[in-house]
């Protein structure tokens, strides 16, 4: 079926992972060194080293110090955390649901987080100060995902289709509740949430990083354990079980870990779409579907993508800043169309 296809040569994991690591390092350096304010590279290095206790003989101002250490560095770290969380979660969900269109939003994390965020603003909560909105968003995202799982569970088992449908249903309910809260909230309150929901790393501080890091790093460290199981999931539910995978336990563990990672990412960065969708597909095109390579590669690739997208967001319209979610959506939409057309040409589609 389909005509002659240009097959992209596969790059083995042993080559791809170091390449992606190099890309990430390069993107990190670019992210710390480039911005609306011009700071010479040697000054950037001096500032970073100074905070680590090493003094070198290069002068810089207090403002430059604040920009590199208090503004750019935490922002870059947060971009890496958010990007890797979203990239890996996308790969996990696509493998678990055997569905190329799955992304973290499917299990209700994004809509639950949005509900939490709007809820905290509309009901006027601020007992955690600036951290109130992210905290509520995180809790909202995690609770919604767990609820999706629990509703879909029957007789100690969940079926994929049931999970997907429950996810859709809960996304709709979350959206409706969010709409209701939007209705009762004042216009003032809503403006705060609108910008959050467009996705932005603009509120990155060391505190924000400290809040999100534990969940995301924990998730990133744990996820590779399931690389082999996910490879078997692809064969089908029954086949995987026959091959010794405890599909139910793997499913709930993966949902919990993904919910924690994505919940934390969405809580601090707002709704950043398409990263969980694009990155796994791109990596699969280059390196094949082996999850042992796919998962770490998606972490590295996702981190680089968000880093570079954020760099674009804060330099293109300088001194104003574009919302990150807008940039990733502008990248993701056309990408999806191209991907669909190429796949149809190469193998007649996914069906």
């Amino acid at each position, binding site marked *: 079926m389909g005509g002659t296809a240009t097959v992209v040569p596969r790059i083995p994991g042993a080559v791809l992972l170091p390449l992606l690591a190099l890309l990430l390092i390069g993107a990190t350096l670019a992210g710390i060194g480039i911005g*609306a304010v011009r700071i010479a590279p040697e000054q950037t290095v001096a500032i970073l080293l100074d905070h680590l206790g090493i003094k070198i003989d290069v002068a810089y101002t207090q403002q430059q110090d604040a920009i590199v250490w208090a503004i750019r560095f935490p922002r870059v770290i947060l971009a890496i955390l958010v990007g890797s969380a979203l990239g890996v979660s996308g790969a996990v969900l696509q493998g678990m649901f055997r569905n190329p269109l799955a992304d973290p939003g499917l299990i209700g994390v994004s809509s639950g987080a949005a509900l939490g965020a709007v809820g905290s603003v509309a009901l006027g909560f601020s007992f955690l100060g600036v951290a109130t909105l992210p905290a509520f968003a995180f809790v909202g995202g995690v609770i919604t995902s767990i609820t999706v799982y629990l509703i879909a569970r029957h007789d100690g088992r969940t079926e994929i289709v049931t999970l997907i449908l429950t996810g859709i249903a809960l996304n709709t309910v979350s959206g409706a509740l969010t709409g209701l809260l939007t209705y009762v909230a004042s216009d003032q309150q809503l403006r705060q949430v609108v910008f959050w929901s467009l996705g932005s790393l603009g509120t990155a501080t060391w505190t924000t990083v400290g809040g999100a890091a534990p969940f995301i790093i924990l998730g990133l460290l744990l996820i590779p354990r399931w690389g082999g199981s996910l490879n078997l999931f692809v064969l089908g539910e029954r086949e995987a079980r026959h091959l010794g995978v405890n599909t139910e336990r793997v499913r709930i563990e993966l949902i919990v870990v993904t919910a924690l990672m994505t919940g934390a990412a969405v809580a601090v960065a707002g709704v950043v779409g398409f990263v969980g969708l694009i990155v796994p597909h791109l990596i699969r095109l280059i390196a094949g579907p082996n999850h042992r390579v796919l998962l770490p590669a998606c972490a590295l690739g996702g981190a680089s993508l968000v880093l570079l997208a954020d760099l674009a967001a804060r330099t293109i319209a300088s001194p104003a*800043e574009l919302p990150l979610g807008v940039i990733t959506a502008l990248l993701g939409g056309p990408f999806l169309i191209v991907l669909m057309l190429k796949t149809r040409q190469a193998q007649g589609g996914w069906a």
Partner: protein
Amino acid sequence: MFRRSLQFAIVALAALLILGSPLSAIALQDGAATPAPAPQLPATVTDVKGNEITVTDVSRIVPLSGDVAEIIYDLGLAANVVGVDVSAVYPEGQWDGLPTIGFERQLSAEGILSLNPTVVIGKEQAGPITVLDQIREAGVPVVIVQEPQTIEAPTLKIAAVAAALGVPAAGEELVVKARASIDAAIARAATSTSKPTVMFLYVRGGGTQLIGGKGSVADAMIEAAGGVDAGSAAGIAYFMPVTAEAIVAAQPEVIMLPKSGVDSIGGMDAVMEIPGVAETPAAANNQILVFDDLLLLGMTPRTGEFLQELVTLLHPELPAFEATPAT
């Protein structure tokens, strides 16, 4: 020959008058007639959060909203402004060519810092708050002034901005002028016997249609102009989404809308399409009024002037108002 030189003299004189009058008009405008006052620095103010802030240099100012920019212009310090937000539209053409820092509520720390400001001034709604903290951490004083949603707002803002920029005397002058014009408008409204029901509709794009109610700036303006705020009478607080029943039940005699909002939905025709509007007395009597955003909602030094206009529009039975020319 004498006639020709006389003709030439007349033409030259006419040319001088024609060319000179805009210049003198500009000279008569508030803020530019008096030479820019020398700011008394350092200026220490307590901002709305209770923090004490010391401003030592006002040579590079970044106002975070259009009304603050306008106040800075009126204080004679417009030349010191190095960047503005998207709402800075008055005076027209004044801020062209300056870099824009984006939206007041979604600022970028590094973006603002790239303008090398020596002081940043904004209102309470400027944000995100972490961005303002980051700017402070970089050593740039950030002054946040109060904006109560009452008719006191213009004078309070002027005083706060002037204090922060070290020009309290010029600020006091502006405050007196602003208060006088606002009080005059309120007094004039009080002489009228009519109390028309006025409704304020905020529209933006296809998705936002809101009725203004108690506690909104529009409410304060309507009450000050001697009208009855229909939204507030219907029990609406701040802004609520439009319902046709609410609009028709309120039976407003006048409906006010912001100009940028009306433009964003496609003009007056689209306004008449808003559910309920076509059935109101306001629509029947052609009393749907559209005003410049900053003028209507900005609580700027021009608020008093605008209030007089509003009073005339709401109470047509009053004798015409003669604005005293600016001296």
